[in-house]
């Protein structure tokens, strides 16, 4: 119950932030801006471009939002000392951290829903427009699967949740917002390249290096696992089993990283 009160309060605070409004408007603007691809007359392939562009905007701005909003919401409490008032109540530190995390998850869900709706609207509009120029008999059927766009958005939301949990972990022991944001962005880049440690591990000759790379490959999440946009953009069916596995992978990291954040925050002196 307290968890949801803190989460709801976090959500209220987040959607009032100017940064949130700016990122949402910019992302929607970019997705709608993909309408400019019609100038190139790519035909049906234009839909692939719109999907790639839309997914890119979701991922890039979503990641930015996940890091900055999480850090900002956490440090607002610390800097304004509202955390002291809150923790002087019968609130476990775990409830505070998990409440913040849950609140940010709702914010990111709201963001992804807006992005998905914008992208689907643009796709539907362009598909209708392109198809109106092609005879009904030879139209390629359901070239972009709208259901898969929604599934992809869900998987990206899980990924953003992992980024948020990572940021919360950094923030739980860091002394400044700037440090948390910088470190988190660096970690996001590293996690996107994490698959190279997997490849490096198998080819490394030294046992020490092998061991280190093996450890890193499990410690850090592999963000490439969430990279399922290629199925959607190429018109293939996105396997549900893969969506479930990627989501489960992400949720395991949600739990692990937030547990570490709770542990770290419990040692922090307010």
């Amino acid at each position, binding site marked *: 119950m307290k968890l949801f009160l803190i989460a709801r309060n976090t959500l209220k605070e987040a959607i009032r932030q100017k940064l949130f409004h700016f990122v949402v408007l910019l992302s929607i603007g970019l997705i709608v801006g993909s309408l400019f691809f019609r100038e190139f007359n790519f035909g049906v392939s234009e839909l692939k471009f719109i999907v790639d562009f839309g997914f*890119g905007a979701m991922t890039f701005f979503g990641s930015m939002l996940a890091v900055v909003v999480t850090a900002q919401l956490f440090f607002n409490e610390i800097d304004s000392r509202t955390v002291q008032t809150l923790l002087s109540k019968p609130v476990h530190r775990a409830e505070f951290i998990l409440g913040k995390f849950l609140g940010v998850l709702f914010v990111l869900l709201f963001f992804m829903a807006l992005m998905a709706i914008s992208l689907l609207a643009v796709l539907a509009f362009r598909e209708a427009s392109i198809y109106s120029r092609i005879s009904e008999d030879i139209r390629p059927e359901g070239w972009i699967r709208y259901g898969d766009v929604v599934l992809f958005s869900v998987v990206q939301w899980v990924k953003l949740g992992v980024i948020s949990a990572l940021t919360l972990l950094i923030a739980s022991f860091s002394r400044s917002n700037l440090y948390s944001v910088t470190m988190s962005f660096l970690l996001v880049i590293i996690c996107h390249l994490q698959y190279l440690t*997997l490849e490096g591990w198998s080819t490394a000759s030294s046992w020490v290096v092998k061991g280190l790379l093996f450890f890193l490959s499990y410690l850090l999440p592999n963000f490439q696992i969430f990279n399922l946009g290629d199925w959607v953009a190429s018109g293939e069916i996105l396997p549900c089993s893969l969506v479930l596995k990627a989501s489960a992978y992400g949720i395991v990291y949600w739990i692990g990283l937030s547990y570490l954040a709770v542990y770290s925050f419990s040692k922090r002196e307010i």
Partner: protein
Amino acid sequence: MRVWEEVNAKQPQLQLKSLEGGLGQGITIGLLGGFRSLVADGLWLQTNHKWEKSDLPATQTLIKMVTVVDPRPTYFWINGSRMIAYDMPMWRIEAFGRFEDVPLSIRDRIIREHSLLAVEYLERALLHHPQSSILHFEIATLYQRKLKDMQKALEYYRLAALQIDAPFYMGGLYGEMLRQSGQPEKAYEWLITLHPSLPRDDIWALSDLVLEKIRELEGRLNVSLEERYEP
């Protein structure tokens, strides 16, 4: 780990060495970071921009770069090969002067050169899409129209028609190409094998037209009534 294997299988090997120096560090990190599709799309937009300006060296470089970054969409291969085979020769010819004023031998040499480049480009595409009917068909068209090599063209038309994703018309077209190239017996054999697989209720399968062609060939080859094809 299994999830990663499944996702990784969808991603072709990234040939970063062949892109060395061609892309900035930021784009390289973006490539490594899983934004290949987006980077390729961006490069394709640049390609279009250079193509509009008839910038041959830049268009040529970018066409190759796009398909190195992301070889998965056949769209890049098809349109890239068309730029190489149909547009670039015209740019080079126009560099000499008006099309009509340039000697035929020079024009033919340039067109041939670029057609062979386009075929080479599409053969590389087949390494990534070995079962693509459209790529085989594109090569066949180049051999037929640009390189005037009917034998090779027929071979690729046949391969195009045999692929799983081949639209119905490719089968009929191959048969017609055989007939036009003076091989009515082969055309007849092919069409009577093809016809049973064509759905009668799909107008684009052209089942009736193929049957018409079969009857024509039966007449030409003097096939007896008893041996004629029964649909």
